[in-house]
């Protein structure tokens, strides 16, 4: 099993204790294109951030790729995110100080497994696959929303992650760009057997994924 969450509980304590996740357990197998849907406030994003290792304030256990991640140090978790998880966010989150190419390369440079030359070659490859190779040397803030999201996907792919996670990756895009991004995800899933876990509130998007996890009121209902 690629990713396992066992009996996850989480509450917010400000100002009164509000339970957000109630005994959530899910398993995601290798190569699956999964979406998490649910109403606003049902805890789907909170769950995603726990699964992504960024949020460590929870009860229960998280396993990725056969390793228990609950209780690991901040630096160890950063390494796991760097190596095994690719991220795509709603608001793109490219670094405006860097060029498109540098943005894509950054997680790879951090991992430091391959030489910068090889990494650049690989980054260009990913950008080409997403139709962005001609924008490689532009600054990140010179791109449109849809373009930024494609660059973010290229960045998520740079270290060949076990899983790509997305928090409403199409939430801020128009219909046409939503289609483009969905097609990229589907292509990654079908051609490269890439595992994907996408939080969305777009039923049209979710309906076309392989598996839908529906959440309500802090519980997985399906």
């Amino acid at each position, binding site marked *: 099993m690629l990713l396992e969450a066992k009996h996850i509980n989480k509450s917010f304590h400000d100002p009164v204790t509000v339970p957000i996740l109630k005994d959530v357990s899910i398993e995601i197998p290798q190569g699956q294109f999964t979406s998490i849907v649910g109403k606003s406030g049902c805890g789907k994003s909170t769950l995603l951030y726990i699964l992504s290792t960024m949020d460590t304030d929870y009860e229960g256990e998280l396993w990725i790729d056969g390793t228990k991640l609950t209780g690991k140090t901040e630096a160890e978790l950063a390494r796991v995110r760097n190596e095994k998880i690719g991220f795509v966010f709603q608001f793109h989150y490219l670094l*405006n100080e860097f060029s498109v190419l540098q943005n894509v390369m950054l997680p790879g*440079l951090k991992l430091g497994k391959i030489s910068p030359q090889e990494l650049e070659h690989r980054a260009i490859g990913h950008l080409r696959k997403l139709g962005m190779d001609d924008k490689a040397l532009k600054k990140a803030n010179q791109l449109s929303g849809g373009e930024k999201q494609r660059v973010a996907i290229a960045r998520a792919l740079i270290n060949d992650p076990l899983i790509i996670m997305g928090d409403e990756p199409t939430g801020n895009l128009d219909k046409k760009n939503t289609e483009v991004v969905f097609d990229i995800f589907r292509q990654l899933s079908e051609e490269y057997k890439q595992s994907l876990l996408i939080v969305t509130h777009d039923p049209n998007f979710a309906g076309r994924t392989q598996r839908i996890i529906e959440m309500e009121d802090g519980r997985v209902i399906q």
Partner: protein
Amino acid sequence: MNYPLIWNIAQSLSLARWKQTLVAAVGVMFSITMFIALLGFMNGLNDLLDSLVLNRTPHVRLFNEIKANENQPILLDNRYQKYHNFIRSIKPNGKNAQIANSAAIISTLKKDKRVLGISPKMIAQVFFNVGETDVTGVVNGIDVEAEARLFSFSDYVTEGSYIDLKNIPNSIILGKGLADKMLANIGDVVQVTTAKGDRFPLKVVGYFQSGLGEIDKVQSYTSLKTAQKLIGQSNAYVTDIQIKLHDLNMAPSVSKEYAQIFSTDAEDIQTANAQFETGSSLRSLISYAVGITLLIVAGFGIYNILNMLIYEKMDTIAILKATGFSGSDVKKIFITIAISIGILGGCTGLFFGFLLSLLIDNVPFKTAALPTISTYPVNYDLKYYLIGITFSLITTYLAGLFPARKASKIDPVDIIRGK
């Protein structure tokens, strides 16, 4: 860890806000510049003032103090040995200011390896007769060459030539203040009356300025021989033996030793000039305090600018963390920014500090009290440059540490979800 990458990110972040970075660096530069210039100037001044007195003060001075004999008769009487004796109205004994057997003492001193040089001297109180008026004064009979070699006598002779004192018989060099009082020009003959009433004509061959006006108003110099003649004494008559040692720090122990061997009084330079040491160290202390205050203020500037940068770059920090940079990586990035500002500002500060020192060094500074200098004094000791750069690195590191720690603790989830 991947330092080129950390460096690369730090560079991009600081260049993205290059104006603020520049302001921070200029702040450090300014404080280092002032630090260097201030310390250089202050210590130049210290050296000057020290040399004013210390260079001309013998390391050890042998002389006879006019005082009562320590061995009073009652103390020699066996019957009163165990008593505490009170003796009233003691007078100094007949011993005069002359150092007995001075020739033997001088030849012994010349054999001592610790001694750099010796200059015998005699002091006589006189009156200078100017028309109806008598001006009190002091004649110092000196060994002209030794005095010039050991105590830079020649530096203080502002007009005329010091060596004439030796070459022209019955010549005198007057203090500038004294000469002004007597309206005596070089080449004039002044009349001197000794304490015993003898009258002597002496030819003025120069003026000297010590830098201390009170001294210049009473002091005058003649050769030792002339002074001995003046008061009708033989050429063995010497009231002071001034000794310069190779190592100034040995003066107190050597002084005690000589006092015992030669049974004279002896005073070392440290005792004679304790107040100058205190003055110098206090001035240094003040300039260090001001310099370090400047650096701390610059440090607060860096702290503010980094804090602002972190607030602006929350998104960047969050995304770096989300894509696998740990808290310590983020901390290193911001400390790298701070230290870079410190190095950049510090080095340019050293450079401009040096330039400012050069500028001060060339500002004309002429004063009657200090005849030997024509511009402001500056000390270029490498020590101040090292202290400056060290402190700039320490303050910028500390100024960067706290914002960097804050940045390292930013929770990416808060930022990403809060949007």
